[in-house]
C-alpha cells in the first residue's frame, strides 16, 4: 500500500457515498448499500495496490466533491442527484468508475451479509461442498431409443 495515496476520513466518506450509489441499498431484498456495508476502506486499499490507480481514485473523488459544490458535499445529495453526478463525471472521465465498479462488485458480492441475503451459506465451498440431485434417469429414455449416431469406419 502507498501512504501518499491513502484516503483521509473525508475522502472515505465521499467514497462510501459513491459506493452506495454504485450499489444502493435494497431494503425489500434485505441488501445493504455497498458504502453502508463499510467497504470503502477495503475497496480503496485494493485499488491503492496499483499506484497509478490510487491516483485515479484520489483525483476522481476530489473532482466529484468539487462538482457536488454544496457545503455538505456529495454524501449529502439525494441518491438520484448522486447517480446523475456520477454519470456526468463518467461521460468525461471514464477511468474512475471503470476501476471502482468491478472492485466494488467483488467486495460486495463476497461479503457474508450479501451472500446470506442471496440465499447462500456464507462460507467457501470447501470442505462442506454441496449435495446435488442425481437427476431423473427416465429423461434418457428417448435418447436410448435412437439408432447409433457415429459413423463406422
Amino acid at each position, binding site marked *: 500500500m502507498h501512504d501518499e495515496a491513502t484516503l483521509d476520513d473525508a475522502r472515505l466518506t465521499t467514497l462510501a457515498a459513491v459506493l452506495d450509489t454504485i450499489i444502493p441499498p435494497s431494503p425489500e431484498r434485505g441488501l445493504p448499500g455497498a458504502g453502508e456495508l463499510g467497504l470503502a476502506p477495503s475497496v480503496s486499499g485494493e485499488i491503492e495496490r496499483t499506484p497509478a490507480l490510487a491516483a485515479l481514485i484520489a483525483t476522481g473523488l476530489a473532482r466529484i466533491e468539487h462538482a457536488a459544490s454544496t457545503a455538505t458535499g456529495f454524501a449529502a445529495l439525494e441518491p438520484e442527484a448522486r447517480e446523475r453526478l456520477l454519470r456526468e463525471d463518467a461521460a468525461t472521465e471514464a477511468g474512475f468508475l471503470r476501476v471502482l465498479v468491478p472492485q466494488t462488485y467483488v467486495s460486495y458480492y463476497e461479503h457474508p451479509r450479501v451472500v446470506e441475503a442471496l440465499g447462500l451459506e456464507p462460507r467457501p465451498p470447501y470442505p462442506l461442498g454441496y449435495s446435488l440431485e442425481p437427476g431423473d434417469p427416465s429423461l*434418457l429414455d428417448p435418447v436410448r431409443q435412437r439408432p447409433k449416431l457415429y459413423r463406422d469406419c
Partner: protein
Amino acid sequence: MANDPVDILIVGAGASGAALAWSLSDTRMNILCLEQGGWMDPAQYPSTGAGWERRRFSDFSLSPNSRGRRDDYPINDSESPISVSNFNAVGGGTILYAGHFPRFHPSDFKVKTLDGVADDWPIDYTTLEPYYAQNDQMMGVAGLAGDPAYPPKEPPLPPVPLGKLGETLARGFNTLGWHWWPSDSAIATREHAGRARCINLGPCLTGCAQGAKGSTDVTYWPAAIRRGVALRTHCRVREITLGPDGMANGVLYHDAAGALQRQAAEVVVLACNGVGTPRLLLNSRSKQFPDGLANRNGLVGKNLMLHPYAMVSGSFPERLEGYKGPTGCMLISQEFYETDASRGFLRGYSFEGVRGDGPVSTAILSMAAGELPWGAEHHDSYEALFDRGASFVGICEDLPETHNCVTLDPELVDADGIPAPKIQYRLSENSEKMLAHAVARAEEVLGAAGATRTRVQAPLPPAGWHLMGTARMGTDPERSIVNEWGRCHDVSNLFIVDGSIFVTSAGVNPTNTIQALALYIADTMKQNLANLFD
C-alpha cells in the same frame, strides 16, 4: 549425483508426461521428468478460503500473462482472437481443467477419407480403444454406458449428477428430440484409487481442493513416483542438445535458482503441450537444425488448432442451483457432431453444458458482458442474473491451416530469459459457419429448456485451452514431424506425446485422447525397446 545421465528424460509433467511416465515405469528404466512448475497444494486452492471467487481473476486466472507466476512463461497472443489458457505445474493444464473427458469418434481419425479435408491419422479408434479404457481407470472417469453417439464403452464410475440445472437443459434437448448424454468426466464420483469422491464444490477451474478431479498430480504422478520415476520440479528446459551423431543427448535447463544445468539422456520425450513443445524445438537451434530441432520441413509450430468455442448463456425464470457441482461436467450433446454438408460446413461440434457461477463471478462476468448496470437498476438486473443462468459451449472442430502457428517472439522472454512463444491465429470460413450454426442451435435448445433470453460469445476469447497440431503425426516426413508412434522423423531418439502431435482436432475436448496417445506411444516404445532408434 543429481545430474547423472538417465535412460528416459521427459520434459513436462502435465496430462501426457504423467501418463507416459507411469506407463514406462514398469520397465524399471531410469526415468526423470523435468517440470518448470512446482507441486500444487490443494489446501491452498481458492475454494478453501474467504475471497475464493476473486482469486479466479488474479493468481488463478486462466491466462499465464495475467497470473505472471514465476513458473509461468508469457505468451504473445495479441494476433489471435482467442487467447491461450494453460497452467504450469505438476499436473499442467489438468490443474485448472474442467475434466470434461469425451473420446474422439472413430470418424475423427479418417477426416480425409470420409470428408475430403485435412489428413487422416496414421492410427485409428480401434488402436486407441484399449488405451482410452486404461486412461479411464487411471484418471477415474465417471459416465454412463449406452451412449448412442459412441461405440460401446464402460466408464468405471457413475455419472456426475445433473442437478436441477442439468435436468432443465436435458428437458430442452428432449423437447427438440436432440441427442444428449451424461458427460464422461474425469471426476471421482465415488472414492477411487485413494481419491475422495466429488462433493460438488463448483469451481473446478481453480483447482480441486477435494482431490476428486483427475488432475495428474493426484492420478498418474503418485503411482509413477511409487514405481521409481523421478520428478524434478522448478526446472525449465531451455534447449534440447544434439550429439555429433545427430541424436538428442540431453537438455540444458534452468534450476529453481535460475542456474543453467545440463541433464544427459538416452531418449528425450517432449510433453510441454501444443505451445510449449514447438517453443522448445524452435529454441533448440544447431548447425544441423538452424531453424529449430526436428524442423527440416519447416512445420514445427504450424497448423495450430484451438477449437473455437461458441458460448451461449440462457437466463431462466427460476433459480437453478448452478453454483453447485462441477462447472463443466454434466451433459454433452453430439447431435451436430458428424459431418452433414447440407449445414454449409464440414465436420462438426459438441455441446458441453456449463453450470452457473457464484455471486462474485456472476457480477464480474455480467458486467463485462454489459448486462449489469451500477446505480438504481443494479439489484433488479442482478436478481435476474444470479443463479438463473445456464450455458452451452459449442466446441467446434478446428482444421489444420499452416498460417495458424506458434513462433518465437522476437522480444518477449520468460523469467529465465528464454524466448517466449507468439501465436498467430485466425478463424477459417468453415469455423465461422460452424460457430454460427452452434450459436443458433444453442439458442434454440436454451429456448426449448425455458430460457427467456440468451447471451452469445463466439468465439469465446479465453478459450485457447486446447492446444493442438503444432508437431503433427504422420507417415510422410515431408508433411509431419513425428511418425505414427510419436518419434521425430528427423531425430530418432526424440519423441513427442502432447497435444502438438494431433493431426486434426475433432469436436471434443482433447485430454482423454492426448493421454490415450501417450499410453499408446509408451506401449509402442516398450515393444520396440531393442530397436527403438531404427
